[in-house]
């Protein structure tokens, strides 16, 4: 851009600093925001080493103890297993049901489409506490008559419900972004509708489905408000932490919370690495 014949413009140091700051302002503030997001995670990590007494609030000294036996506190690992099971089952069901709904909503014209849109949207615009309260009343006053009492099953039913709309919206966006000409081409080449779907459409929307499943799992895994209403005596990890917070959260919960964070990051980074490797191999 600069021509070599003119003498190069040398701004003063202050001016250069100002230009550098202007260019990097967005990135610098973004890094600050990310640090802000991680600050409580760092606290959780640090206090997992706290040699605490009854409550784990003030720093009292370093210990490996909690990392050596994270299940040492009664209930903490049981609640984690429950959370993982609930997350797995509700993610699976919500992803399947939601993907089917998304296909219907994008690819078909039918009576009642507007009503279906509202049915999908309203759960996302309803505060969790209202959904939890509504589910509690129906579970206690209605479904208990048919032998369904509060516990694992009711948690799973509720989680599938609130994950469903988010799956539909996510998968729908993916289907809408597909070029319909690709499918038309498959049909022109005498693929049956079933073949077109499984060989062409499905692989193309798979990243959207995977993203939706990830979202559903993280929503389910971190849910407390609805779970608290419908869980009865069953405990999930967030519920365990909340109940424990009245007496003092044991550092073992910090160990587990921080480990889940690290595992999630590693899994996602790993999955992205694999998919970019695959993409590179396709290019070759």
């Amino acid at each position, binding site marked *: 851009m600069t021509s070599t014949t003119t003498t190069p413009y040398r701004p003063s140091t202050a001016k250069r600093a100002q230009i550098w700051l202007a260019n990097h302002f*967005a*990135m610098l503030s973004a890094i600050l925001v*990310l640090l*802000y*997001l991680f*600050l*409580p*995670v760092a*606290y959780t990590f640090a*206090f997992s080493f706290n040699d605490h007494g009854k409550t784990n609030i003030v720093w009292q000294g370093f210990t490996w103890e909690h990392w050596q036996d994270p299940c040492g506190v009664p209930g903490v690992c049981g609640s984690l297993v429950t959370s993982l099971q609930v997350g797995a089952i509700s993610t699976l069901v919500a992803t399947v*049901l*939601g993907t*089917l*709904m998304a296909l*219907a*909503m994008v*690819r*078909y*014209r*039918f009576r009642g489409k507007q009503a279906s849109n509202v*049915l*999908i*949207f*309203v*759960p996302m615009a*309803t*505060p969790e*506490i*209202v959904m939890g309260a*509504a*589910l509690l*009343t*129906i579970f206690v*006053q209605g479904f208990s008559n048919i032998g369904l009492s509060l516990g694992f099953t009711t948690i799973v039913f509720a989680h*599938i419900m609130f994950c*469903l709309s988010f799956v539909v*919206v*996510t998968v*729908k*966006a*993916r*289907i*809408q*972004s*597909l*070029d*319909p000409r690709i499918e038309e081409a498959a049909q022109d080449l005498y693929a049956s509708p079933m073949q077109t779907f499984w060989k062409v459409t499905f692989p193309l929307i798979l*990243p*959207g489905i995977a*993203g939706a499943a*990830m979202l559903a799992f993280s929503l389910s895994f971190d849910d407390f*408000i609805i779970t*608290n209403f419908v869980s009865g005596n069953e405990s999930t990890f967030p519920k365990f*932490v909340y109940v424990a917070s009245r007496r003092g*959260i044991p550092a073992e919960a910090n160990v587990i*919370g*921080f480990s*889940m*964070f690290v595992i999630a*990051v590693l899994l996602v980074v790993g999955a992205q690495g694999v998919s970019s490797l695959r993409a590179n191999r396709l290019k070759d």
Partner: protein
Amino acid sequence: MSALAHVAGDPDVTPAPPAPEATKRGWTAYLLLLPGALWLGVFFVLPLVQLAAVSLQSRYPGFPGYYYRDVNFQNYAAALTDYAPHFARSFLYAGLATFLAFVVAYPLAYAMAFKAGKWRNLMMICVIAPFFTSFILRTFAWSQILADEGWVAGTLNFLNVLPGGNIINTPLAVVAGLTYNFLPFMVLPIYASLERADPRVIEAGGDLYANGFTTFRTVTLPMSMPGVLAGTLLTFIPAAGDFVNMELLGPQRGKMVGNVINDQFLAIPGGYPVAAALSFTLMAAILVMVFLYVRRFGTEELV
């Protein structure tokens, strides 16, 4: 709200060249829709109908905690008169938190969309990953960070800018907690809509001698409006119904409506009808706000 797709980390969602027309007709659509719609019917609509019925029940005179089926709007009157301050606080704190989240989220979303380059995916992971530490653990961590003996309160007190002398157990801490907890729901939709914007359009603003701020106000911000809209809704709605931040960070008195509903349901015997009326009032208020807001600022189909 297709901007939501990015909450799930699907970076490939871009508008299709020619919009695929929904041309297929027939019964297949109903078959595809049926299982999910049935699920939402049984576990969303039906419970709300039951909640509505509960909210209209009447007290048995002489039997505290017992109610009978009725059509009685007394509970709504009680909900609106006794708990009006709680509603006001919920909407005020949620509104403040939404605004603050917008201010904090925008630079991050902007940097992710235009400046991050190859770091984009990593930044996206960084935004979502804290979810896995459990928001209750993180909120508890905030109660440590903001505690009176902590460095935040210490610094602010040293600078003499903290009126009451403490942050924890004040509404300020509640707003801070709400802002923090729902921040990712603001970042991701804004990022999604900025990412779809053409950076050359923004450069054109600069070429036409608009300064940075004018370019932002007249070009960048309008282009990201669908994301801002989705983000503010996804932040405001859960914040208005939240009770955990108030419970862990807030004062003993002056609770939000979410705390009242939670206590009425789970701690006070026979509290169901008033709690049900409160829930419905909260939901109706939010739906009306969402409707007006989307009518005023909506730029695209919401779902």
